[in-house]
């Protein structure tokens, strides 16, 4: 079976090709069958691969063909299978399959059904190539592929220019990160001579001492790419706007898979990052600041999808924090559980939107607990996992991260405190969402109930969100072991109970109405804070002022092609001289006589002067 792992990315790719070629000519059911089936088959292959690999859990490399060979750059298309790859593949194909199935009902009324599944299959293929690649060049291929598919899918309803603008924003902001990553690739190749990940890390470990400036620079550039793709500070502004795409797209791309590509990259090249402690600390700090920033912002949103988007940014911040403090397995574990409950939340939100004729504002929903019971339970379980309430999957993963953060020598307790505040905020905003949407009075009535293709994926994801914490991931051989000493028990108790406090505060504010947030908000400071946090700490405005406007000013000033001025000047001088000279041809005899006399004078003068 292991020799056939090339089938895993090939099946969705073939599905995408077939759907693109047969555009508009295939019946809907066939399109859905191909789209969902290709990912389903791929998931089946992953399952068989996992079973086969269990017998002999050693890293497996499959070489397919040599992509290009120039001087000493040898780029091969070959796949590398180890525990980390297997975890990522399972998440991508498993959650992907459920989302594809969900989309079959969610997008049933859409006119571009075919195009949707083609893009979605292409995305899954690209993401699989990304995680299965054994060299950074093939990984970059997958990286760019998911970027393109994200653009295509965010701007899926392109007839509305706002969607196109959101898609462009996503692409451009991640492009900035991609450029940094490309520079990192160039640097690594120039320094180490190879882009094969395993070979590269081996050479790096021998050649570079920890703290080597080259290592720091290369990893910082890779971090730039990861920050862009994973929507961390400062390149996170695209993700809330990317919610313009269909909800299953948000679930798959912007919750479970693409945004985790950055986390995967850092985890895959962790040996390089271990050689650059400065970068690693930067990773942790970026994670910490992002999770706090996004947490505060999520508290002030009223669009259901934007709350979840900021929540995603925040949770990936936790993953970055985990990687930064050296808890690699914890980060990947959180990646997996996050995929489960965030996909669940997005799909449930999609169901809410779908059944409430496209209402997005949570303040116009309410009382859906009785009207959409399956969705309610999905949301409740998902939010519980998100808030890391005890014994959900999120609880286990987030707890590991908090404890690992605490144990970091030096700034550990500060990181832990920040992450704790983030956990409090997470619980607060997620249950604010639940209470506002599902309890209280119904302001909008649902006009339909979800079918089996929506309900079954929700149910499966509910089970995974609850029980996923007990899955043992085969990551031990991949990552170095983290510190073993246990923190004091009181730390553990605080970590466990803080989300419960968040839940309690949310209850008091939004359900029981013992406290009112309106009085706080009504004060002047409250209003300003609310505006500030609502706009994402005004970062969009900052970027607009800092980058977009100067760029547009430059474009405007270049619109008349000032560089051509020099060449135009030459032409102008030529024309002017031509006109000047033609003025001397007056046609008048006396003028010619005068000019002849002048010439004669000059000639005589030269002769006399020289003689």
């Amino acid at each position, binding site marked *: 079976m292991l020799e056939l792992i090339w089938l895993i990315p090939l099946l969705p790719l073939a599905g995408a090709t077939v759907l693109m070629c047969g555009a508009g000519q295939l019946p809907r059911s066939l399109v859905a069958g191909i789209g969902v089936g290709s990912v389903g088959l791929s998931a089946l292959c992953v399952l068989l691969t996992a079973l086969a690999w269990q017998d002999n859990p050693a890293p497996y490399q499959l070489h397919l063909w040599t992509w290009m060979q120039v001087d000493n750059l040898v780029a091969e298309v070959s796949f590398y299978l180890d525990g980390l790859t297997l975890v990522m593949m399972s998440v991508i194909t498993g959650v992907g399959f459920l989302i594809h199935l969900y989309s079959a009902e969610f997008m049933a009324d859409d006119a571009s059904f075919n195009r949707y599944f083609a893009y979605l299959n292409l995305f899954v293929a690209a993401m699989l190539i990304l995680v299965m690649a054994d060299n950074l060049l093939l990984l970059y291929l997958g990286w760019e592929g998911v970027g393109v598919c994200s653009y295509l899918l965010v701007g899926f309803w392109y007839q509305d220019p706002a969607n196109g603008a959101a898609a462009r924003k996503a692409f451009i902001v991640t492009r900035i990160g991609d450029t940094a990553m490309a520079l990192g690739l160039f640097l690594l190749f120039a320094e180490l001579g190879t882009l094969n990940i395993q070979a590269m890390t081996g050479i790096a470990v021998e050649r570079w001492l920890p703290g080597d400036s080259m290592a720091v620079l290369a990893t910082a550039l890779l971090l730039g790419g990861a920050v862009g793709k994973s929507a961390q500070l400062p390149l996170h502004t695209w993700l809330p706007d990317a919610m313009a795409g269909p909800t299953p797209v948000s679930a798959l791309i912007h919750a479970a898979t693409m945004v985790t590509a950055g986390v995967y990259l850092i985890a895959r090249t962790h040996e390089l990052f271990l050689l650059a402690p400065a970068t690693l600390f930067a990773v942790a700090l970026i994670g910490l600041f992002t999770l706090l920033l996004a947490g505060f912002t999520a508290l002030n949103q009223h669009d259901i999808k934007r709350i979840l988007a900021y929540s995603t940014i925040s949770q990936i911040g936790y993953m970055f924090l985990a990687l930064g403090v050296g808890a690699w397995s914890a980060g990947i574990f959180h990646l997996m559980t996050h995929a489960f409950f965030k996909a669940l939340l997005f799909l449930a939100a999609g169901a809410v939107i779908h059944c409430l004729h496209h209402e997005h504002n949570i303040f116009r929903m309410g009382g859906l607990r009785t009207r959409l019971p399956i969705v309610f339970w999905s949301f409740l379980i998902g939010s519980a996992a998100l808030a890391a309430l005890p014994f959900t999957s999120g609880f286990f993963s987030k707890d590991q991260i908090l404890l690992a953060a605490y144990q970091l020598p030096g700034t550990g307790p500060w990181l832990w405190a920040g992450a704790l505040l983030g956990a409090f905020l997470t619980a607060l905003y997620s249950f604010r969402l639940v209470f506002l949407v599902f309890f209280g009075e119904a302001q909008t009535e649902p006009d339909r109930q979800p079918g089996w293709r929506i309900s079954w994926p929700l149910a499966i994801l509910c089970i995974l969100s609850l029980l996923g914490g007990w899955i043992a991931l085969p990551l031990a051989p991949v990552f170095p072991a983290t510190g073993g000493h246990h923190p004091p028990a009181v730390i553990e108790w605080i970590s466990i109970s803080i989300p419960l406090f968040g839940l309690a505060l949310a209850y008091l504010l939004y359900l029981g109405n013992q406290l009112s947030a309106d009085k706080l908000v009504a004060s002047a400071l409250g209003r300003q804070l609310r505006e500030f946090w609502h706009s994402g700490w005004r970062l969009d405005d900052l970027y607009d002022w800092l980058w977009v406007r100067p760029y547009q000013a430059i474009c405007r000033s270049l619109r008349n092609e000032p560089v051509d001025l020099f060449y135009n000047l030459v032409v102008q001088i030529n024309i002017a001289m031509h006109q000047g000279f033609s003025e001397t041809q007056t046609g008048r005899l006396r003028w010619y006589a*005068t000019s002849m*006399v*002048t010439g*004669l*004078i000059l000639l*005589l*003068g030269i002769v*006399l002067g020289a003689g």
Partner: protein
Amino acid sequence: MMESLFYIAAFVALFSTLQALSRSNAIHALIYLIISLLAVAVIFFLLGAPFAAALEIVIYAGAIMVLFVFVIMMLNLGEAGDLRERQWLQPRVWFIPAILAAVLLAELLIVEAEVAAYTRGVEVSPKEVGLTLFGPYVLAVELASMLLLAGLVGAYHVGRRFIDRTGGGER
């Protein structure tokens, strides 16, 4: 004493030339020009070139200038012509030509200042001129006659009155 004749004749020639070129009446200017030519003829006599002097008087002053007079009389410009000439001859039009001419004059005089020689003072008789003309220069004589023929034909053709007046096409 005889040398002073040369200087007198030179002065007359120069003065009358300047007058000729600054009159507004064409006939007056022509008369002055004839005087200038006669003065130059005197200079030729003084230089010992009687043949040249005679030719100067007979052909230059006697034929060419008379041709001028004929044409002017034929054109019959009258008072209107004089008026126009006076309008055209404002003092300010003399400035730049005067400056240029002065510069040119200066340059030429600088060149001529190095010449330190005297004319020989022998007379070259018409007989000698004739012998030289039809001896070494006989080809030039033929060419001159052809030139005169060309001038004749050209003058006749250019001065013709064309019947077709529109556009001025050549026949």
